């Protein structure tokens, strides 16, 4: 363990990794609100499988950084119960893939509690998500589509360190359950400057990651970076001006930002790492159709993973997941439509 471990310093104004940004958000919110506590498997002394919670238990004690049994149903249910009583639990899934085990508790109990029983569930479920890391079918999932479909749940999926920190703080302060997906490929690869002070990014607001006028790419999480690479390549090679919208929040969707970019470029590519059928791109396409059909100069197109469980070998995973070259090809097609 690094010496930093027991301190969990709060930076601000400095360049830190996506992972450190998450740890800082946890640290700051636990400091400022005694109702915030963390629970999960191996998050205490060990600091979690990815070391996101490293140092938290040393700082806040085992009562507030709680190692649980391997019981995703119980973790989520207990968070809801504690939430009813005014606590603000943050539950870590060791890998987000295991959120499937708590699907009933999340969609049936937590999501409906306020509506049917006027009971608040101010809680966050967070965990390492996504592929490109040779994790195979059960350590690479992007479970957002299974949850944006559920009224009562919010879903957040940041792509930068600044957003990771600011959105997690907003999620912890939100009075409803927020699923906070962390892209594990970005944990230690992305670092950027996080504003000093109490940096909170509002839930429900997208971000323009790159301005452009010819074609829009709407995406989130790890593929934001691929979209930016593709945009640069298309500027260099084709002279195309590509706008990249980073959704940041998947539920509720930022319709305004989506419609604004459609009206601006009239050509939209939706890009996600999740499998194609039933992925969130369909929902966005429908919203664009309903609200901005007249602005479309070309069909809304999707670049997504193939509809297969994510395989493990590099050659297979790379084929199944969307790559920059795919985005380039798709944008060229849209621009030429």
């Amino acid at each position: 363990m690094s010496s930093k471990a027991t301190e969990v310093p709060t930076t601000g104004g400095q360049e830190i990794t996506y992972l450190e940004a998450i740890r800082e958000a946890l640290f700051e919110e636990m400091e400022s609100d005694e109702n915030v506590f963390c629970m999960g498997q191996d998050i205490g002394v060990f600091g979690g499988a990815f070391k996101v919670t490293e140092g938290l238990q040393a700082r806040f004690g085992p009562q507030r950084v709680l190692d649980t049994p391997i019981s995703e149903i119980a973790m989520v249910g207990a968070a809801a119960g504690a939430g009813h009583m005014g606590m603000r639990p943050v539950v870590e899934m060791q890998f987000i893939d295991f959120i499937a085990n708590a699907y009933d508790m999340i969609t049936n109990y937590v999501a409906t509690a306020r509506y049917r029983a006027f009971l608040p569930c101010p809680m966050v479920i967070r965990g390492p998500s996504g592929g490109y890391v040779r994790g195979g079918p059960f350590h690479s999932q992007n479970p957002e589509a299974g949850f944006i479909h559920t009224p009562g749940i919010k879903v957040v999926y940041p792509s930068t360190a600044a957003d990771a920190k600011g959105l997690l703080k907003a999620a912890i302060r939100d009075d409803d359950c927020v699923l906070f997906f962390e892209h594990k490929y970005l944990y230690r690869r992305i670092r950027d400057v996080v504003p000093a002070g109490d940096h909170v990014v509002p839930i429900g607001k997208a971000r323009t990651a790159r301005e452009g006028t010819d074609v829009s790419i709407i995406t989130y999480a790890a593929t934001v970076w691929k979209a930016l690479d593709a945009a640069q390549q298309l500027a260099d090679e084709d002279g195309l001006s590509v706008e990249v919208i980073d959704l940041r929040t998947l539920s509720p969707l930022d319709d305004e930002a989506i419609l604004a970019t459609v009206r601006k470029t009239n050509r939209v590519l939706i890009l996600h790492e999740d499998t194609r059928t039933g992925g969130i791109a369909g929902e966005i396409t429908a919203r664009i159709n309903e609200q901005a059909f007249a602005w479309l100069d070309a069909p809304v197109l999707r670049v997504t993973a193939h509809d297969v469980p994510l395989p493990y070998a590099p050659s297979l995973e790379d084929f199944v997941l969307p790559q920059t070259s795919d985005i380039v090809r798709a944008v060229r097609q849209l621009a030429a439509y």
Partner: protein
Amino acid sequence: MAPRPESTRPRRSRGRGASANDRPPSESLSREQLLALYYWMRLTRTLEERLVALYRQTKVVGGLFRSLGQEADSVGSAFALERRDILSPLIRNLGSMLVKGATPLEILRQYMAKGDSPTRGRELNIHFGDTDRGFIGQISPLGDMVPVMAGVTLSFRMRGEDRVGLVYIGDGATSTGAFHEGINFAAVQRCPLVVIVENNGYAYSTPTSRQTLAASFVDKAIGYGIPGHKADGNDVLAVYDVTKRAVDHARRGKGVTLIELMTYRRKGHAEHDNQSYVPEGEIERWERENDPLTRYVARLTGEFGFTASDVEAVDERAHVEIDAATDQAEASPPPEALDSLIGVYADPPAAEPLWFREGIAQAVTSHERPAGWGTSNVE
């Protein structure tokens, strides 16, 4: 309102030889409390009988679930809690909810899906709660309330509050993963929680012998490293005693207890169920030999020295209350359609009506209604 446990006045002085711990807690109940136990059981039964009448008049929306023959289990256990404690009832714990302060009027409005019911018509039957009065409404997926109550009581422990939780689980629902994960979590976290398995012989049509091979549900306690106790669920004082001890144990910081209460579901799973799967004579035997109200009345008028008219006065009072509540509930309006869009989230506070509902009033008044209920056995 009958006296609640808070107003405890010892009924008799302590026996000289026995220590406080050995003596059943029920020996400390006041005469008012002894009669209150009967009142809650009678109120439960009378209210359910009224619901049957309303159900036959098709005024109940959806199914009706009875606790006939199980009233002692609900009432005796809930009576062991303090007002600040929290319990999570199941579909057959109407009695527990009444003890915890739910009113017949609320129950009636709920069953009739009225706009001023506790859930404003959003949820079924007795699926509602109130954390101030100390009960949290269940949801239908069985077992889920065990993890939730683990979390409720975890918060008590974390904050050092002197509060205890009680959660019920049916014999059938012990087979769910949620029950297992929740009780294990609560046990290892030493949450102040009492878990009561209500063994009423059946889960819908399934007898316990097809639910588990275990000889007793209390045998599950050792596998969670917690104490387990079994009691006669149709003896309201026995139920009170076993629960009170577990509640005290939890309050002393000793963690979870599993209790198995032996009882019997005399009615079907819901009102529509004809119980064709029940061996002949079984129901009648329980009714004849083991009705919790009959048994308790015998003790009240026997060893506790109440008169028959004391008992009748309670019966009468329950009737009067239910009559009044029924009149009031029937007069309640249905919910306003637009209320359906309010409060999914704290922020935003309401969903927008969809575009094809622009003429909302018209859409609502001209909507189709089903010709009849598609199912009579919703739960």
